């Protein structure tokens, strides 16, 4: 069976800094971790390519500072990338490089086809607006103009993520960290976007909440067939969620393949170390 990828990314590059003659050429450049020791330019993402298929969960693991979150922010148009292409499988944008579209078009894709759950709920939520309002914001951005409809969708989602409805008009500022994270997930799901980015969703949550959030993600993927990219440094999370996994180190992909394969039979020295460090 030949399936078309939902999202395909080719040669994505993101650097912070201008680069110097020692590091400009990717072939033969001597980096210390991910930065050039001469000019201190950070190469956060280097030549990253992958495909994301419909209904698939793609895991990205790697130590902190390996470029996972930067990659997500580039894909969600939060960060301007240095070079690279990505195309998204939507009829009117098929084959086009989404990174070269106008800002208005990028905004449109982001509002209509993408959902994002940030590691830090402060980034994804408006802390001074009600929980239901936060969900409505995503719906409004995607063209929602009917209060009653948006309220129904919001309530259903909040129930799904186990937020008691009597607290829906409260600001997430007054919620616990786990609840904030769940409101964020509800928000990301609200417009039924075909692609979801999850950046360290369970980091910092206690184990029982973590389990219910993971359950929820798994359920959503099964029920709605949404494609997801899950970033985590927690291999247990990746093992549970991801079908395929990329392993990142110092801004580059060092290994990719089926999650089970990677965890059972790691090839690159870094992945081996990572897997064997698992308690």
């Amino acid at each position, binding site marked *: 069976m030949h399936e078309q990828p939902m999202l395909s990314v080719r040669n994505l590059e993101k650097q912070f800094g201008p680069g110097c003659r020692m590091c400009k050429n990717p072939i033969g450049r001597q980096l210390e971790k991910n930065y050039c020791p001469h000019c201190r330019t950070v190469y956060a993402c280097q030549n990253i390519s992958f495909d994301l298929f419909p209904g698939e969960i793609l895991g990205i693991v790697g130590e902190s500072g390996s470029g996972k979150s930067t990659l997500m922010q580039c894909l969600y148009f939060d960060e301007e990338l240095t070079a690279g292409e990505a195309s998204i499988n939507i009829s009117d944008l098929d084959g086009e490089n989404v990174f070269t579209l106008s*800002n*208005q078009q990028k*905004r449109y894709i982001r509002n209509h086809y993408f959902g994002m759950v940030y590691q830090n709920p402060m980034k994804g939520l*408006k802390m001074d*607006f*009600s929980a*239901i*309002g936060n969900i*409505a*914001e*995503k719906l*409004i*951005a995607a063209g929602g*103009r*009917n*209060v*009653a409809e*948006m*309220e129904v969708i919001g309530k259903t989602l909040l129930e799904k993520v186990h937020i008691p409805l009597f607290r829906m*008009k409260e600001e997430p500022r007054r919620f616990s960290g786990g609840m904030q994270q769940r409101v964020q997930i509800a928000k990301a799901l609200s417009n039924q976007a075909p692609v979801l980015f999850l950046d360290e969703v369970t980091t910092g949550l206690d184990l029982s909440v973590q389990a219910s959030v993971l359950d929820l993600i798994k359920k959503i993927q099964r029920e709605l067939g949404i494609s997801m990219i899950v970033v985590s440094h927690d291999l247990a999370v990746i093992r549970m969620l991801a079908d395929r996994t990329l392993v990142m180190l110092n801004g580059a992909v060092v290994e990719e393949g089926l999650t089970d394969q990677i965890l059972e039979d790691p090839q690159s020295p870094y992945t081996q170390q990572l897997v064997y460090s698992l308690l």
Partner: protein
Amino acid sequence: MKTNHHFAFFDEGSKKEIRRAILKAVAIPGYQVPFSSREMPIARGWGTGGLQITLSIIGCEDVLKVIDQGSDESVNAVSIKKLVQTTTGVEVTDLTQEATIIQSRHRIPEVPLDSNQILVLQVPAPEPLRDVEAREYMTKILHSEEEYSGAWLQLFEQIMKFGRTTTGADHPVYVNHRYVMAPSPIPRFDNPKMHQSEALILLGAGREKKIYAVPPFTDVRSLAFDDYPFKVESFSGKQCRLCGTSDVFLDEVLAADTGEVSYQCNDTSYCMERLNQAEKAEVENNYA
């Protein structure tokens, strides 16, 4: 010692700069054009934005009317009128239809304006997205990408919390189907008057250093959800205690001693004119 000041207080260079900002504002309806707001003889926040626009566009033949929340006689309106008159020598008036330039704080006159008139509105807070996004460089990006979910979100929150939109004044509007604009703190009652207005509407924010405009015959729509349509203040069953009108914006007047509530036209010159007409008609009927 008496010194001669330049016509309309400003030097010509200043006027030119402000006029350029105005031209750009007219060319891009609803877009906030930055300008170098000048130090004025009144404090910022007291109408310096409107005053600077008035002074840069006024000519010898203009007739000026200044109102402050509907009143021609309030201290602020009188002071601004005096300043412009002393420095230009133009005629001032209370009658809306006689004026060519009407500078106003928080009201649009009841008498419909025509294409020979310019309405100058004073604006304290020109950015409709400020409450959702504090950073100016971000709101500029949001405007450029036509990302107005923040403005809608504020209305949504009001509906969630109070069952309806609760903007008492300054209800955001969509101008020319492109920019969301703060119409200055005019009551919702006046929002529809901006739609397809025959007169040019210029808005000036002195403290925030922004000028924006609604050119004549431009679509101006108040933001509203499908199931919560935009509503103006209703004064049904109430009428002005002086002139008897009922289809205008009314002020509630509370008698301190008796606690009795009565209503009165907010637009004083409109009320005065109606009273004069009634008196004239009465005189003609009774003594002719």
